[in-house]
Structures are given as structure tokens and as C-alpha cells.
């Protein structure tokens, strides 16, 4: 991967040689084989593009997709409590803005993209009743979703300026990043018997909200377990190493759907009825354990890549085993495997779609529910699936872009 990036980079540089004709000759018609290839490919590409464009803009009927946009976003989350999702989104986006101001680089791209995305929502050319659902009312002014989304883009930019201030330390922002997800979960789930934050059962959560919850929740929770398993597998204690190995290999040996299925059925049998968690939590547990086994293998690879001399040197300067592991070995290992972790995250993000098989209405599940809820939409399956595919592609493409930038920034794998 890394060496390939360098290669493409040099390719790109040489291709910027003066003269478009020169470029065309070098890259499209360098020899007779290439010329034939180019000549046959151009009409093929043009034809495919033509078909796709004609379908998207003329023959496709997007009414199933546009009928209930909010359902795709948050599922059945009560509409009068929608401000809780709004505030969560706002705070996360604000943090992205602040981090963008502080660090720039990759976060800059994310920040700009998010700003444009939310601004785009705010000025979306079509009117839909979902977009004018009030989020909250301040001084008898109704704040609609459309307006709120625009506000988010403003907050990202404000955050950017705040992040540039010296007074805002990096540590503060990092604390913010740790605290926000916890606050978000509390904000979304609420408390029993609370006036301000009545508890909202997770069966009502759906759409992108659940997709992101499962993906981020899965990766965050699986990380410590993955580290523990990786260390356990490398441990010299046979019992620990055996159990870790067995766990990792068993989880990696079966498909994710079987694990999801196990957690949705078998867990009912191995826990007392009162201790059975909610369905989404069960799915999250399954995703976490699944992801942990893969993360563990990635981390193990990273640990192996740390030269033993590093450990010996740490010992020589009198560090304890704990210190060696935490300050010398793990940081280096994690840096080496960061791209792999991001790759793991992308595949986890895509794998969240499998929860529809156990009946959870994630983004794909909502799409299926919408298709099924009106007989006329049965014919619009293609449009719905294409829409879903595009959304997943946008997010995971952004993530892989991010991972590539991260690789470059960290100089991972440079030999």
C-alpha cells in the first residue's frame, strides 16, 4: 500500500509534464497495444456513463427515497425529541470544527466536507415536510430541521475559529472527544422518569443513527478488548495465550451473521431473562467481539513489527514492563497498524448492514421497511438500493481517503 502510493504520486508528477498532447501520448498511446486499449475503452466508458446518467436523471423514480428522509436518518426516534439527535450531531460537528482549527490536515478535509454537506441540506432544492419539523422553539421562533442543519455548518466554521485560538489547548479538545460520545449516548437514551430527558427505548432508534452507533460503538469498544487479546495471545502464560488464541480463531473462523444470530438467539438461553440486554445492545456486543478478534490480529502484527531492541533499551533505562508496554511498544505498534485499523473500521461500518438479518432497522433496514410499507414502492427497489449504496460509498470512501492521508502524515511504512 504505502509504496504504491509513492508510485502513483511519482506517476502523477511525471504526468504533469508540459503539454497535454505529450501527456496523452505517454499515458494513453505509448505503444500500439495501449492505443488499441484506449480506443476501445473510450466508447465503452462513454456508453456506461450515458446509461447511468440517463437512468439517474430521467428514468429513475426517486419518490421512495425522498418520501421519508427523516426515517432514513434517525428511524422512529420520537419527532418531539429529535432535538436530542440534533444537539448530539451539533456537538460532534462542533468538535470536528475545533479540531480542524487546531490540527488542520486531514481534519480540514473532513471539516470542509461536513460544512458543505450540511449547508447543502439547508439549501436543498426540494421542500419536504420532514425538513420543516421543528427541532426546538426559542422565543417563539421555530427552528426547523432544515434551518438547524444550516446552523451546524455555521458551527463547524465557528469551531474552526475557536480551534485556532491559543487558549484552547489540544488536551481540552481530546478530553472533549472522550466526553462527547458518552454524553451523546446519555442524551439519546435519556433517563427513566425524567421530564427533560425521558428515556427513549432503543427499538425506536434507526437509520443512519444506528449504523453510526454500531460502527463507532463497535470499533471503540472492540479496541481495548483487541489489545487485551493481542497481548494475551503473545503472552508466555500458556493458559492466557491458549484462551486468547482459541477465542480469536473461533471468532475469525465463522461469519459475522452467525455471531449476530447467536447473540440474538442463544444469548437468551445463557443469561437469566432479566439480564438480557436490548436488541441493539446485543448486536453491538456481537459486532464488538467480532471486531475485537480482527483488531487483535492487527495489533499482534504491529507488536511483532516493533524491534526487540526497543524493549531491551527500555529495560536498560530501567522502565518497568508496564511502562515498556504502554510507552514504548504499544505506541509504535499502533502507529504501524493505524491504516489496518482504519481498514478494519471501514469494513465494520459496511458490516453493520448485516444487522438487518437479525431484524434491526439500521440504514439498510429502514430502506427495506420503506420498500415494504407501500405496495407501489415495490418497483422502486433499485432506486432505494442505489441510494443506500451511494450513502455507504460516500462515508467509507471518505474514511479510506482519511486513512491514506493519515498514512502519509505518519509516514507509516516508509522504508
Amino acid at each position, binding site marked *: 500500500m504505502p509504496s504504491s502510493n509513492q508510485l502513483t504520486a511519482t506517476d502523477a508528477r511525471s504526468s504533469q509534464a508540459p503539454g497535454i498532447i505529450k501527456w496523452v501520448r505517454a499515458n494513453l498511446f505509448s505503444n500500439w497495444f495501449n492505443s488499441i486499449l484506449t480506443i476501445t475503452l473510450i466508447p465503452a466508458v462513454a456508453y456506461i456513463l450515458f446509461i447511468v446518467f440517463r437512468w439517474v436523471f430521467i428514468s429513475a423514480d426517486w419518490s421512495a427515497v425522498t418520501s421519508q428522509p427523516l426515517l432514513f436518518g434517525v428511524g422512529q426516534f420520537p419527532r418531539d425529541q429529535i432535538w436530542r439527535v440534533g444537539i448530539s450531531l451539533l456537538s460532534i460537528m462542533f468538535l470536528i470544527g475545533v479540531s480542524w482549527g487546531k490540527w488542520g490536515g486531514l481534519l480540514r478535509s473532513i471539516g470542509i466536507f461536513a460544512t458543505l454537506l450540511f449547508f447543502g441540506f439547508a439549501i436543498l432544492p426540494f421542500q419536504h415536510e420532514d425538513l420543516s419539523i421543528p427541532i426546538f422553539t426559542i422565543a417563539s421562533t421555530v427552528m426547523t430541521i432544515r434551518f438547524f442543519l444550516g446552523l451546524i455548518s455555521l458551527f463547524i466554521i465557528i469551531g474552526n475559529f475557536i480551534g485556532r485560538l491559543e487558549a484552547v489547548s489540544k488536551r481540552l479538545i481530546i478530553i472533549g472527544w472522550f466526553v462527547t460520545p458518552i454524553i451523546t449516548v446519555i442524551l439519546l437514551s435519556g433517563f427513566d422518569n425524567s421530564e427533560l430527558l425521558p428515556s427513549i427505548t432503543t427499538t425506536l432508534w434507526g437509520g443512519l443513527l444506528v449504523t453510526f452507533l454500531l460502527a463507532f460503538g463497535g470499533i471503540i469498544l472492540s479496541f481495548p478488548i483487541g489489545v487485551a487479546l493481542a497481548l494475551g495471545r503473545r503472552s508466555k502464560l500458556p493458559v492466557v495465550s491458549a484462551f486468547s488464541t482459541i477465542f480469536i480463531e473461533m471468532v475469525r473462523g*465463522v461469519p459475522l451473521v452467525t455471531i449476530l444470530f447467536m447473540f440474538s438467539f442463544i444469548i437468551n438461553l445463557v443469561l437469566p431473562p432479566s439480564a438480557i440486554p436490548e436488541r441493539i445492545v446485543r448486536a453491538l456486543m456481537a459486532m464488538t467481539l467480532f471486531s475485537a478478534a480482527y483488531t487483535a490480529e492487527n495489533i499482534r502484527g504491529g507488536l511483532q513489527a516493533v524491534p526487540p531492541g526497543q524493549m531491551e533499551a527500555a529495560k536498560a533505562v530501567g522502565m518497568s514492563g508496564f511502562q515498556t508496554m504502554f510507552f514504548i511498544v504499544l505506541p509504535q505498534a499502533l502507529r504501524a497498524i493505524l491504516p489496518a485499523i482504519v481498514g478494519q473500521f471501514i469494513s465494520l461500518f459496511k458490516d453493520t448492514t448485516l444487522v438487518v438479518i437479525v431484524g434491526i432497522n439500521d440504514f439498510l433496514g429502514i430502506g427495506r421497511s420503506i420498500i415494504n410499507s407501500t405496495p407501489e414502492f415495490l418497483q422502486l427497489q433499485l432506486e432505494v438500493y442505489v441510494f443506500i449504496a451511494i450513502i455507504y460509498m460516500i462515508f467509507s470512501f471518505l474514511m479510506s481517503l482519511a486513512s491514506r492521508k493519515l498514512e502519509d502524515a505518519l509516514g507509516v511504512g516508509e522504508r
Partner: protein
Amino acid sequence: MASIKSSPDQNASIPFYRDERWLQSAAQIISAILIIGFLIYIIINFFIAADNRGLNLGFSFITEAAGFPISESIIEYDPSMSFGRAFLVGVVNTLRVSLLGIVAATILGASVALARLSQNWLLSRMALLYVEFHRNIPLLVLLYLWYFTVFSQFPNVQDSSELSRSIYFTQRGIYMIWPRLTETGGIFLIAVFVGIFGALFFWISLRRRREITGQQTYYIQVSLSVLIILPVIGWFLADGNPLWIDVPQFQRFNFEGGMRLTPEFMGIFIGLVTYTASFIAEVVRAGIQAVDRGQIEAAKAVGLNSLQILNLIIIPQALRIIIPPMISQYLNLTKNSSLAMVIGYQELFGLAKIAINNAGRAVQIFVMVMLTYLFFSLLTSTILNIYNRRIQFITR
């Protein structure tokens, strides 16, 4: 680690909680107790729950009639056959799509990798687009798209029946003429297999002899002639023509005869292949690019042609890097085949789900499914790991 052992007299002076050996065994015992305790807790709870709900934990249902239809099977099956048989059908269907898929995905993946490395800008960009598209789309969505937008949009079966061809692309599947063995064709088949294995044997053994002794052993010629001559002998040994051509004929509803690939199979097969190929392409590309450029230049300098460079310099070195990630891609493909049920191809997991609905023996069926997948995974990784170890050894 072992070299830094504390001597016994030192040992006496330090308290037990600083004694490394004591701590080690304590740690092991505690972790073992915790893990085993956790397992026992789960198992006890399981039996209590099973008892409460009157679950039948026996395996006798395996011989009972399954009662549900299965859409396609290469071994004989009908609803009056047993659950065990249905399970077997699932295993065979999983293996069928996985094995074919692995072969096809390797070929496609390698081609995409080569396209990606092509000097032609358009071709390499298209390969990149292919890779990015498939890496960023959830497989489940990709399967829906393949099945509902490609394979169910083929021409209607009644319309295509009017054309007489050797291959038909219809909504009900792809039908093509196919050679089949006659009753006396068995000996021909045996001859073909003997030919293949004989050729392999000569190839490997003669080639090794050449490597060891340096003598020309004509291994290519010998194995090729074995491969051709034995089937020819078999053809004449068979009484009459050993093969007959099965031509698809349109019947009342569908075509009959010939070789048929159902849209469901094609959907999962093409979906898995195109998806996995994008990952394999990246693996192969990384492997090829990892080969030192200097080596290729050196090979050119000593006068090897480009085929020889590929064969003798690039592939052996790239394989070392490619094989481990390739193993995990193959396993991923096999495991991903469990999504086939959403587009109607019934493999192990899909059939297990149906069986759970019908027989209600969730736990037993589940254990069987998990163990089957686990078995295949471990088997594959063991075999490929052995192969991998050999390759690594030879090239160093």
C-alpha cells in the same frame, strides 16, 4: 526471557508477591478460574433455560423429514428427505459457490491488479475505480444490486425460447449445452482423472529432479503428453462415445436439460467474485510492487525476457508477500457466502435459519453450522499455511 532466572537463595529473600514464578502461576490459575467459571456459569444458565422452556437438546431431529423445499442442489434432495440431508445440501452449496468463487476471484483480482499497474492511464484509472467502488460498498447492498438489477433483468424465458442457440440468457438462469457422461463413459472419466494426477505427479517430481541435479528432464513435455494420451486411451476404451451433448430444450415453463446456472447462483457468485477481487487486486498489486525494481533491472541486464522476469523473478517473490493476506481473503469469501440467502441462494446459513424455524432446534443447528464454518476455516488456513511456510522456506 528465560536467561534472567533468579537464583534460589535470592528467591528466599523476596516476598512471594514479588516472586515472578509464584505470580505467574497465580496469574494463570486466576485467569483459568475466571474463564472457566464464566463458561460454567453460561453452561449452567443454558441448561436451566433449556429446562425451563422444555427445549429438546437431542439430535434425533436430524433424521426427521425436513419438509421444506430447497431451490437448488447438486445432490439429490426433496422435501421428504431428512434435516441431515438438507444440512448436507447447504454444505455442498456453500462449498460450490466458495470454491468456484475463489478461483474466479483470484483470476479477476490478478487481472485488475495488472490493469491497475498498466501504463495506460485510462485502464489503470478504471481499475482504480473498480477497486474503490467495491471496497466502499457493503456486500449486502452489492448483492441486491447484482441480483435485482442484472440477473433478474435478463430476457423473459418465453421470449428466449424461440431462438435456437447453444446458450440462453434468461431470467430463469443461463442455460447452455453441456457434455454429459453416457453409461459407459465412466472409464473415460477415470482416465481423465488419472491423466491429470499423473501429469501433476510427473511435473512435480521431474521438475524437482531438474532442480536438484540440474539435468534437463523434459518435465513439461512428459506431463503434457500424459495429460493428453491417457484421456485419449480412455476415450477408445469406453464402449462407443463416452459423452453425449445435453441440449437445453424449452418445456412448458422452463428449459430442461443442458447446464443451468440459476440467477441466484450467478448473483451470489458474481457478487462475491467482484467484491473479493477488489481486495485481492490490492493484495496482488502490493505484492508485485514490493518486488525490488533493481531485481527486475538486473534480470533485464542478464537477458531474461519479460515472461521469464515475471515467472522467475516477480512471481516467486511476490507470492511470499501475497499468500498470507490472500488466505484471509479466501476465507472471507467463504464466510461472506452466508449472505446468499438474501438473494435466494440457499447455502449453509440460510438453510440453517429455515431449519431452525421448522425444527425449532436452534441450539443444535447453530452448533452444527458454527462448527462447519470453523472446520472449513481452520482446514483452509492450515493447508495454505503449510504451503506458505514451504514457499517462504524455499525462497530464502
